[in-house]
């Protein structure tokens, strides 16, 4: 099939920011809840996750609405959730935010009913934990369902987005709990989180590489997408923003921190954390911007 190729210009920064905030928020909510359900110590971490997770997802919504052609009609996005991922996302996000706000209200604000009854809190955590995961998965599936962009048409993009969401979510937890008196138990939960994050960064790098190699061998359009990232128009953004700033440097900084003495390196941790966040945003943007639409011109009839 002879085809015509065009870089898509329809979903750019606003959608990237939205995907980033939604992923980060849902990630930190999810990790916060895991901490509450399975570890049960250092509950302030869970509180921070629940609170900032919900707030960050809410922060992403305006970007989504701003990207619409008709912003005044955004409530209609929920009319057809049967097939459309935009419509499904509308409900996933709405339910997540409502349950998250209830969670905040009950647990953190003065009412604190859930503090009294732990079972209720656990049930709410599990239900909204599922929705937090759904938000992370949906950000990938939204792109995957766009047929004309072959670069997005793979389950790997979902896995990549989920891992990036968890990684940035953990950073978010660490970031907001830095000033908190650390260590309710014997071990420092932040240390554990940062180590987990290093593992996630390695995993993310591997999956990103696998994704790109896969796409470089898929179709003509996805080849062009990969080329624009590796040595095309987006190479600075990709190598500088995603690879060096988002993956390599944070990992090196963390490794350096691990080998050296523990004290006096809060500044380094902060820098590497900010880098992971910037990398997460650039990852979303470069994947969006690299999307090449392939449209047919002619079949191969000879």
């Amino acid at each position: 099939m002879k085809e015509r190729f065009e870089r898509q210009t329809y979903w750019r920064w606003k959608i990237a920011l939205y995907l980033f905030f939604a992923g980060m928020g849902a990630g930190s909510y999810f990790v916060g809840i895991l901490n509450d359900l399975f570890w049960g110590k250092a509950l302030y971490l869970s509180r921070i996750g629940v609170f900032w997770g919900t707030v960050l997802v809410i922060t992403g919504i305006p970007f989504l609405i701003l990207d619409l052609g008709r912003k005044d009609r955004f409530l209609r996005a929920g009319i057809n959730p049967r097939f459309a991922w935009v419509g499904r996302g509308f409900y996933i996000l709405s339910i997540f935010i409502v349950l998250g706000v209830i969670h905040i209200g009950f647990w953190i604000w003065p009412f604190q009913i859930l503090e009294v009854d732990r079972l209720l809190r656990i049930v709410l955590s599990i239900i909204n934990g599922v929705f937090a995961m759904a938000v992370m998965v949906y950000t990938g599936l939204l792109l995957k369902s766009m047929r004309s962009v072959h670069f997005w048409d793979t389950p790997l993009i979902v896995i990549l987005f989920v891992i990036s969401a968890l990684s940035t979510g953990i950073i978010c937890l660490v970031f907001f709990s830095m000033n908190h008196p650390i260590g309710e138990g014997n071990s420092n939960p932040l240390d554990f989180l940062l180590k987990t994050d290093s593992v996630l960064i390695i995993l993310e790098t591997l999956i990103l590489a696998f994704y790109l190699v896969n796409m470089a061998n898929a179709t003509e359009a996805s080849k062009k997408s990969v080329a624009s990232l590796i040595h095309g128009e987006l190479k600075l953004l990709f190598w500088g923003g995603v690879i060096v700033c988002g993956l390599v440097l944070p990992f090196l900084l963390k490794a350096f921190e691990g080998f050296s003495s523990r004290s006096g390196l809060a500044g380094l941790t902060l820098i590497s954390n900010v880098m992971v966040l910037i990398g997460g945003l650039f990852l979303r943007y470069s994947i969006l911007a690299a999307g090449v639409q392939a449209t047919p011109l002619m079949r191969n009839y000879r």
Partner: protein
Amino acid sequence: MRYGMVIDLNRCIGCHACSIACKIENATPPGVFWNRVFQVEEGKYPDVKRFYIPILCMQCEDPACIKVCSTNATYKDSRNLVQIDEQKCIGCKACILACPYGVRFFNEGAKYFSIDVPWGEAEKDHQKGTVSKCTFCAHLIEKGDEPACVSACPTGARLFGNLSDPKSALVQLVKDRFGFQLHPEFGLNPSVYYLPPKGSTLGVVYLTLKSSLGKE
């Protein structure tokens, strides 16, 4: 009843009359071309040929755009044609990215023509910030006319009619001349068929003469 179109690539001379006729008839905003004509080159030197291919909404039987529309703004009307209700569209642009034929456009602006002469007969108020695409000139079909691009084509490369009738000229042409759909493997079953180009000017002249003589 399933409206369809057959476009004979032997006859298309790349004059873009269909694109202009479409723009006049439907008063589409700047940058929006519901019908476009592309130039295609095939083969390697010295065995090269060049031809033109008009691309418009394929009016799929099982459209990808309807599935991703979260507001039901894209729908199938009573004539089985895929249409967009600009009053319902929120401009999320998902359908533009989902359509594998690249025939959907985002209306950046609404007004285009600066004079108040009534040109085409379609509704001219395209809404800014919504998505639009070829309607197969549903307002003309309603009156029993052909779409504007079909009647504007100087070489008669386009044929419009009923695809579900096995005796119609459309179906016969597709059968006799090895008509093909674009991306049939996607399973969307487009209603626009193309007749493969043979690439010789003489052949085009011959076909045009033959059919115009045959008509009279």
